[in-house]
């Protein structure tokens, strides 16, 4: 299972429509930065930044060919996010720890 911090990074990377669109495109097959930029009204550097965020989050990988460096989706990372039960279990446990703390605070206030 992926650590919840990695998942936070992945979710943060997903919290942007352009990056989601890039992922949806890559789900159909690998593509170069130029190809990825085509449907967007964005500069190449702007697209590259989004690709960098996705790459850092581990959601995509890039090939080693110096010139093209095609981007492809990282199925394992996508699976960790897609296996949302595994993703959510640690998140819910943290939340309920926090809920217990708030309930304790309420009791203190009542005293």
């Amino acid at each position, binding site marked *: 299972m992926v650590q919840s911090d990695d998942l936070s990074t992945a979710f943060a990377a997903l919290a942007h429509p352009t990056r989601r669109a890039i992922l949806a495109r890559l789900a159909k097959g690998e593509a170069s930065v130029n190809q990825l930029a085509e449907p967007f009204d964005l500069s190449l550097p702007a697209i590259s930044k989004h690709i960098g965020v996705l790459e850092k989050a581990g959601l995509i990988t890039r090939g080693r060919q110096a010139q093209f460096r095609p981007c492809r*989706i990282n199925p394992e990372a996508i699976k960790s996010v*897609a296996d949302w*039960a595994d993703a959510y279990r640690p998140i*819910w446990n943290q939340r309920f720890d926090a809920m*217990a703390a708030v309930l304790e605070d*309420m009791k203190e206030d009542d005293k």
Partner: protein
Amino acid sequence: MSDQDSWVRIERVFDAKIEDVWRMWTEAALFQRWYGPNGAQVPTAEMDLTIGGTRKIEMQMTTPKGPMSMWFIGVYKEISAPRRLVYTESMCQPDGTIIPPEAMGMPEGHPDVTEVIVELESVEGGTRMVMVHWGVPAGTAGEGGWMQAIDKLGEALNAG
């Protein structure tokens, strides 16, 4: 559900009254205090606590590039204070438009609507809570089609 990966069940006993645990789920100001631990905040929590009423949550994470928000929207399906609460949840745009999982590169069949069921019961020592969070895969009756879909995606990617 035959597919155990498509749901989360957590049981806890809180040293608190059942009414107080109920308020944690249903009062926005209290909900915001616990729902976003680990660096996440909940700047928005709209809760129209009626059957069919809208529930909209903004979760905000801090990233090196500044705050990043994810929005979730759903409706209340069951409100039986202080014992049972059922609501749906989907990822959405800030305006409430649901984001289909395919738009995130997720395999077809990934749940686009999930449901949270909270059951509370007074027990010795406090309140027992059982929470179930499960996915309703798009286009199926709820049986675990989406794990197969993920496998298919994996195969497709490996073949490519």
